[in-house]
């Protein structure tokens, strides 16, 4: 086990080295690691969820292209963060220069229908965290035993390190690790139940149309 931060830098350095040697999959691992943070950062600038995802994707591709020039003088995340912010700002500037939706005429009905279909696929419900999910997480936290709730709250709300939590809760760091893990597991179990229910509902909705 390692201290927070130092470990992240070493992991990134190792993966970056691999990417620079031609291993594209290593970049996928970086995406896997940072996608949530980057998407969340971009949504501060771009409210539309599908646009935000496009910009996040663009930011990652820009980062990949620029990686040979990354010398490791700053942490990878800081560097990626800058690229993401610049990409978001450029996107906003480009959007401001584009004509408004009213000015764009859809040439044919077919085009119009295609646009509608695309819009349907990218509804906020499909991309955004639903209120049901957020509520399930809140309820799961409420239901946690106090020591687990305190540990996960200090970690996620306050951003404290394991050592700091251990000090605050007057327990060994190992106990903090265990409490945070158990809290996450309990919340995730509730989320899985919720998702299974949602999938069932969706399937029921689709059934009649499939029969038609």
């Amino acid at each position, binding site marked *: 086990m*390692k201290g927070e931060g130092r470990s992240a830098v070493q*992991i990134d350095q190792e993966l970056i080295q691999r990417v620079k040697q031609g291993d594209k*999959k290593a970049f996928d691992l970086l995406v896997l690691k940072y996608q949530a943070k980057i998407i969340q950062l971009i949504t501060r600038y771009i409210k539309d969820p599908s646009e935000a995802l496009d910009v996040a*994707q663009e930011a990652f*591709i820009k980062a990949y292209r620029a990686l040979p020039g990354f010398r490791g003088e700053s942490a990878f995340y800081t560097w990626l963060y800058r690229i993401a912010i610049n990409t978001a700002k450029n996107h906003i500037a480009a959007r401001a220069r584009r004509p408004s939706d009213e000015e764009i005429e859809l040439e044919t009905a077919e085009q119009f229908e295609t646009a509608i279909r695309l819009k349907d696929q990218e509804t906020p419900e499909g991309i955004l965290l639903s209120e049901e999910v957020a509520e399930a*997480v809140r309820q799961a936290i409420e239901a946690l035993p106090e020591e687990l709730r305190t540990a996960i709250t200090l970690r996620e709300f306050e951003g404290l390190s394991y050592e700091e939590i251990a000090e605050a809760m007057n327990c060994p760091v190992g106990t903090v690790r265990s409490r945070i893990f158990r809290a996450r597991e309990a919340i995730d179990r509730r*989320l899985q139940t919720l998702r299974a229910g949602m999938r069932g509902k969706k399937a029921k909705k689709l059934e009649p149309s499939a029969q038609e």
Partner: protein
Amino acid sequence: MQDDVNWKLSLLLDDELEPAEAIDLLEKIYQDSQLLSKWYGYQTIRQVLKAGGGIQPQPEFLERVKMALAEEAILVPSDSRSGRWTESLKKFNFGRWTMPVAMAAVVALLVVLVSKQVFFNSPNSGLQIAVAKKPSGSSGGTGRQATDYSRLEDYYFLVHSEDSLYLTGPQHVLGYARIVSHGR
């Protein structure tokens, strides 16, 4: 066993794993859809607690980036020769040499400018050409009297005054040298 992996997943989310172990786990997540789902589940919890909502962390985004990345060229290690060149450039102590080199360049420039100035301002600038070496048997007159054009092919002496000559190369391209004789 699964609990052990999930335990590590929780540590990975908090950057609490050893780098080698973390990379190993990231590779497992990448290949195992169940682990991937668990990873996004933990990310979702974090996002709800931190931001209260937003875009759902989901594997579709990773797929999108992978597809876009497939269009990109594979990065290759930079050429070792250019790497060595960059390295030696880095090792070269520019700070140490910049000042003396700049000073030398300035002095050289000044010498050229001043000499040009002197030459063009001289009363006989470039108008009269004489050979420095007195031809044997001359009557001992001035340089001007001892004019001998036979060596013009080699180089020119330009008469500045009775006692000094400027040596210049063909077409005045080369630098100048002043030859001064005293007590003549």
